[in-house]
């Protein structure tokens, strides 16, 4: 292993880590809130249905809290390095090659995050909808993109509102991937994250 360089307190790299930590704290609260919301929705559903007053939109709300949980948690676990990876090969390599593999793998995550941002961009087309004066119908007419005209089945919420989790996920994932790279490059010391289950990446991978 190479010696980590002394931390550059005011550098861009420190800024990336600070931003990532702030996002992670927010994600912790969101995960907590979404899990609590899910429990509450399901229990209320059980109670109201049993008493003969079922609430029509609860199932859909529960499904969407799980969808949000997936992507908020998916972003957080990237920073926590809790995701599953195969290091069958990297374990057999020397320190130098292993470092290159680790950086490449980290780069792969960043590439996906940025690609996801780009795919969300062409899908949600923020410039297009703005140019149409935020008139969903007019935008759909010219672009064949009907995203902003859709509503969910029983909640009757705009679908795009719920789907904003995808660009948010793409952004926070990219930020966390960059933060991981900053640490792996040795530009900054590794940070600890309070309030999360402790799981060392090395214990998760094989």
């Amino acid at each position, binding site marked *: 292993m190479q010696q980590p360089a002394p931390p550059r307190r005011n550098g861009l790299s420190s800024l990336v880590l600070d931003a990532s930590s702030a996002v992670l704290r927010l994600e912790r609260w969101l995960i907590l809130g979404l899990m609590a919301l899910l*429990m509450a929705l399901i229990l209320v559903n*059980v109670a109201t249905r049993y008493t003969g007053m079922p609430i029509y939109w609860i199932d859909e709300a529960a499904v969407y809290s799980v969808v949000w949980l997936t992507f908020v948690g998916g972003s*957080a676990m990237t920073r*926590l390095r809790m995701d*599953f990876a195969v290091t069958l*090969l*990297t374990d057999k390599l020397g320190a130098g090659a292993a470092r290159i593999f680790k950086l490449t793998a980290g780069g*792969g995550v960043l590439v996906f995050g940025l*690609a996801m941002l780009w795919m969300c961009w062409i*899908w949600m087309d923020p410039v297009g909808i703005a140019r149409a004066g935020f008139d969903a119908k007019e935008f759909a007419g010219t672009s064949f993109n009907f995203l902003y005209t859709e509503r969910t089945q029983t909640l009757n919420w705009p679908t795009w509102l719920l789907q904003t989790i995808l660009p948010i996920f793409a952004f926070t994932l990219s930020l966390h991937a960059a933060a991981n790279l900053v640490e792996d490059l040795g530009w900054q010391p590794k940070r600890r994250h309070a309030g999360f289950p402790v799981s060392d990446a090395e214990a998760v991978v094989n």
Partner: protein
Amino acid sequence: MLTSLFFLAVMFIGVPIGICLCLAGMFYIWDSGNPLLFQSFPMQMFGGVDSYGLIAIPLFILIGEIMNGGGITRRLVELSMAFIGSVKGGLAYVNILANALVSSIIGSATAQVAIMSQVMVPQMEKQGYDKTFAAGLTVYGGMLGPIIPPSVMFVVYSVLAQVAVGDMLIAGILPGILLTVLFFVLIALMGLVYEYPRSERRTLRQRARSVAVCSPTLLIPIVIVGSILSGLANPTEAAAVGAVASALVGRYVTKEFRFSQIPEMLVRSGIYSAIVLFLVAAAAVFSWILIFGKVPQATAAWVQTVAKDPVTFMLLSNVILLVIGTVIDGIPGLIMTVPILLPIATEVYGIDPRHFGVVVVVNLVLGLMSPPVGLSFFVAAAVTGAKPGKMFIVTLPFFLVCCVALVLLSIFPWLSLGLLK
């Protein structure tokens, strides 16, 4: 072809599996020259987890967290110990028996592995078992989760195949018992070779005391089953009701649970759920692209030219599913293969769809415990700190026994359909 090479390359570099699936999907779109699919990519990921059935995952993991925090799973295990008594490899049998009991509450293998490895592995380690073996054994015990009812996978299958949900769940009972018995036999045989620790000797009175002390924890499975049978809740909701029951039993009966632990447990189960759910989303987008590229269809056409009779077809399906199971897990695997293979099974070979369902589900569950993407091993590893690769090698006999069970289930339809007639 190029895509699978790309997938293998990024995977062995060490990119997280979920991201590998996404990157491979993007690579395929780029390679196939249909860039329009990029625009549908994010939404397809969203759609992959936009499903009621998946709600069960965070709830099942949460109930496990609370059961452990309240010392409840431990008491269920102690109950199993009281039944097994003092024999060589006693805790190994207890592990399997307790897993079979817990399976009647939990419908997902990974959730069960997460829970049971928290409880069983430290105990087995304390008695002198090798940690890797203990964790690996728990992984195979957890396999019973989606086979003994309730089972999320059977529910998903019954939707895809349009067969009655109740039929599918009943069809899982005999295969679950078969696997339990085979695991027992294997432990006994392995005990001839390895020196397994003997479980502590207990008098009949001690055992009776265990039963008396531990019985109140049986309230939780009773509440769960009762809430389903009484029509209060469906199996998914019953997990939420069960979580409340475990919190109350943990707080007021075992007195090991504090309500102040709840936020921390919600965060932890939320994160563990997200690990699984994100894989489901990634697998959904990957299989969508494979289906768009007609990869499964090509496979099906080839199968028909090779297999001449139902048994050959079943065995061939098993090989294909095992291969698919190595990279794609449970529910996404079902979604990808059932629509392709089932029509061939029923229309060309006259196989009962419920029989086929049991074989497919057992096979894909086995995929959860085969490298390189053996989700169950990773979950057990995350909880216990044992190495997944080593775990697989140490418990290889269990994998082989599962393959034997799979062949038996494929050849003898009555193992699946017997209780239905």
